[in-house]
């Protein structure tokens, strides 16, 4: 039995320890905000926060999660920080097809929580693990710059 915190509640699962967190989230907990793009840690669509650090849920065997605190886009969407990101991504046109967006939002949170006023270069490094095939990234960078301004004090 593996026990960890998921979006604020303690959960237990008897799934085998090598099951990927991504599969556990989507299939056992029906949290389908985290997406599978590449399944190899290169696209970032499955990003979640583990103990407040952004990680690829496709690379995490759930056995490694014992005692950790996992937050997915579903849990994060209940925070005031999310509200700012939601608004700024919409305003800047940082969302088109939306597949990369949950992961992009999680990577943005990880960046801003460490560095509330990042430079453009730091923003690009912060989202360097997240692929977006629609926006060309510039609008996402704009969205994050806007969020850093608007959310001043939140992060």
């Amino acid at each position, binding site marked *: 039995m593996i026990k960890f915190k998921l979006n604020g509640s303690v959960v237990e699962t008897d*799934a*085998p*320890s*090598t*099951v*990927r967190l991504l*599969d556990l989230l*989507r*299939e*056992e907990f029906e949290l389908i905000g985290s997406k*599978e793009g590449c*399944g*190899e*840690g*290169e696209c*970032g669509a499955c*990003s979640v926060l*583990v103990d407040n*650090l*952004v*990680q*690829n849920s*496709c*690379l*995490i*065997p759930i*056995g*490694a999660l*014992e*005692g950790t605190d996992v937050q997915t886009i579903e849990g994060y969407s209940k925070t005031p920080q999310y509200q700012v990101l939601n608004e700024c991504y919409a305003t800047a046109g940082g969302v088109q097809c939306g597949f990369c967006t949950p992961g992009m939002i999680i*990577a943005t949170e*990880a*960046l801003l929580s460490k560095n509330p006023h990042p430079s453009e270069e730091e923003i690009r*490094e*912060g989202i*360097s*693990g*997240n692929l977006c095939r629609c926006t060309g990234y510039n609008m996402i960078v704009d969205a994050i710059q806007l969020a850093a301004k608007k959310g001043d004090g939140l992060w």
Partner: protein
Amino acid sequence: MVTKTVASYHFDTLAETISKLNEEDCTIIAGGTDVMVLHKSRRGVAPKIAKPVVFIDHLRELKQTYLEDGDLHIGACCTYGEMLEHSLIPNIFKKAIREVAAPAIRNRGTLGGNICNASPAGDMLPLLYIFNAKLVLRSVNEDRIVEIHDFIQGPRRIARQQNELLVEIILPEVVNEARLIFEKIANRRADAISKVSFAGLLQVQAGKVADARFAFGAVGPTMVRSQETEKKLLSQVYPLKVEVLDEVVADFASIINPIDDQRSTAAYRKTVALKLLRYFLTSKELF
């Protein structure tokens, strides 16, 4: 989820982990960034790992970084992210980490994992080779110290016995004035596998070369380093004479034999590797 279950272990202490390895041949999982991809199944199905699994990345004993007698000891399960934030980690390693891995990978990938995966393109390996890294392998019987170039024997082949665990990486003292370079050539700045990588160390004292070390990644089954060629540079006047420079580059041209694969071609890899060496030995910007 239909999954065949293998035994899995998640011990509270390093001692228990090592004693389990003495009893059973296990697959060791640190961050999992390589193991989970290597054994990947289709969506919704757990990776197919045949042996029992031992998780080690939660072990605090494997996350210590400290100086002892001038040598830097880095715990095998230090993640790239933890190394980036640690004041004792040399800046050249931090530069390399920022260039090779996006934040999500930095938060899972470990230094020990990168070594034990023994990829020809392993991102930290060129630097570890030029730092003459030594590895501490612990078993119930003893601590054994192995040089990194003896430990890594080929792609995914390492000199770890079944009952051993890599617990620490030791970087012997590096002279502060050494000039260092790390360059990685890949399709993308983060999370891409190298076409070529290169690390160099050069120390010049009173206008002469006092120490020179070079390691090339992704151009052979393991890192390419030649202590014989490095020795030719010792006591040479710096800036190097053209003949000396040409001889060193020619030496490496004869031992660097890359392959064509999906990421790059042999010709491209070799050309870039030699240009990186020449750049390092002549660039004024670096110094």
